[in-house]
């Protein structure tokens, strides 16, 4: 990888799980074919997955840095590469380049409160982050998670979410857009629920990932709650090819999402020209 940053390492497909009721989201656990190629990473980083002959696409790492045996990626089936990924079977070998990009500033979170706000299938790197925080629970203050989807069947990692609901050291609020038979949790959009939950901004950090419309309406709520732009983080996506700051397409103003991001603070984004 260091000699040739375009050269993918080989990963073996392990557990495959269909995550959503529309079957468009699948998680893949990938094992290193050559264990000596295993690498460390931090929550928020991404990798380029590739199927030779089909192409490459970037995906956030959904597993925790502490899950040493595999890397998990949750893939939304939408284009050529993601469709090919959906046809993978256990035991097949695919390519991976990474870890790429920066990460959530977990070192800054130490000793302080963290609120994680997610929407739809953008919960992937947030799962990584949450597991990282929970594994070092005593190092952080209050942890609040607000996660919403259009309907219950579109929430990622449901089994884990329902388990985490029982934890006393974590405030987890799940919400769906509309009433749904059998859903006895919250109903409402993420921005409104955030306002209602009102996580404390005193010594607090917010991490927001979701569809652009959710981010757009959640950021003002966080500002109202007193979170300064330096303490609000989000992760961006752009079309990418090289992932290493050379191919020239994922920039927002002078910043490349692949090497300067994908994680940016709202303070950084406010200095960039394009709508993000």
């Amino acid at each position, binding site marked *: 990888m260091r000699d*040739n940053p375009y050269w993918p390492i080989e990963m073996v497909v392990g557990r495959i799980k269909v995550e959503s009721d529309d079957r468009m989201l699948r998680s893949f656990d990938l094992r290193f074919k050559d264990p000596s190629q295993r690498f460390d990473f931090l929550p928020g980083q991404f990798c380029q997955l590739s199927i030779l002959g089909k192409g490459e696409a970037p995906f956030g790492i959904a597993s925790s840095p502490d899950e040493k045996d595999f890397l998990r990626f949750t893939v939304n089936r939408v284009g050529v590469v993601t469709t090919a990924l959906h046809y993978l079977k256990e035991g097949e070998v695919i390519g991976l380049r990474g870890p790429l990009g920066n990460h959530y500033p977990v070192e800054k979170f130490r000793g302080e409160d963290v609120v994680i706000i997610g929407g739809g299938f953008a919960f992937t790197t947030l799962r990584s982050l949450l597991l990282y925080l929970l594994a070092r629970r005593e190092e952080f203050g209050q942890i609040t998670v607000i996660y919403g989807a259009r309907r219950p069947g579109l929430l990622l990692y449901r089994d884990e979410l329902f388990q985490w609901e029982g934890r006393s050291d974590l405030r987890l609020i799940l919400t769906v857009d509309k009433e749904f038979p059998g859903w006895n949790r919250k109903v409402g959009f993420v921005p409104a629920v955030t306002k209602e939950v009102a996580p404390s901004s005193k010594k607090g950090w917010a991490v927001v990932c979701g569809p652009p419309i959710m981010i757009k309406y959640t950021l003002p709520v966080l500002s109202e709650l007193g979170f300064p732009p330096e303490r609000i983080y989000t992760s961006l996506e752009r079309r990418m090819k090289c992932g*290493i700051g050379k191919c020239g397409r994922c920039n927002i103003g002078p910043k490349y999402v692949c090497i300067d991001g994908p994680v940016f603070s709202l303070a950084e984004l406010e200095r960039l020209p394009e709508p993000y």
Partner: protein
Amino acid sequence: MRKLLKKDLPRLIEWLKTSYLLYGPTEYGFAPIADHTPELITPIRPPKGIFFPQYQVLFRYDGKVPKSKGIGLFGVRPCDAKGLLILNRIFTQGPYRDNYWQDQYQSGIIIGIGCNQPQPTCFCHWFGIGPFGKEGCDLFLTDIGDGFLIEAVSKKGEDLISSFDPLLPPTDQDLKRRDEIVARAEAQLKDGIDPKLIKERLDNLWESPIWGELAERCLSCALCTYLCPTCHCFDIQDEEKARVRIWDSCLFPLFTQEASGHNPRPEIRDRLRQRIMHKFNYLYLQYKEAGCVGCGRCVIFCPVNLDLRELMRRILDEG
């Protein structure tokens, strides 16, 4: 400084060919020099494609990575040599280094030649290059009529030329003639704009009507990016047997088109602004130098006659 008589040029070429796969200018671009002495013209295409091919195999699925050979470029103009230097910076600096570029560029040698007769479309002097700029060259030639003055610019160039016998010491007359040629050429290049000013003005022009007005003319054909000595954007594609990279352009709508249907730069206006901002603002911010060498190719070949120099003057007036 040494002198090469013109009758000895073929000997120099043959001698360089013993160490390098030697490319020289043709009308359309740089091509391997076969058995003729190259005509020292400025080709339509800059030499970037020799080190950064328009189509390049990154690796074959059977694991083979193509090996690079030491390439010599003979007769490179100062603008183009500087363009290669800018590409080298982009490809080798930052958190990752592009090994394909680096292997080709570093194993190569660049033999530049001064421009006795700058063209009306030349504006390399805006960027501190000038018709006899030697930056990015290993050896530099100046045509003084009956021969060339040869200067070693880099250690690699010095090592190479020191073992080539048929060179003479230049006479005072030769040096005087060189000075006259340089002065005459430089006098033809007037009215430059400081790229630092362009950078600063662009800071204020994100929402300017300039971009929309330009977009009314621009075809978004990307010819300027293909002919630009510093444009480096590329695509990576999987073919049947190999993963390849292919030149791409920020002027194409598919460049940033996302699978979801969203495109952050959907209009020609957005993409033109990206190209100009990248070259004259973002790259300047990063390296204190613009991503332009004033070669004039985009001015000469634009099918709708957009003139970058006019745009720069407008930017200066309106920013």
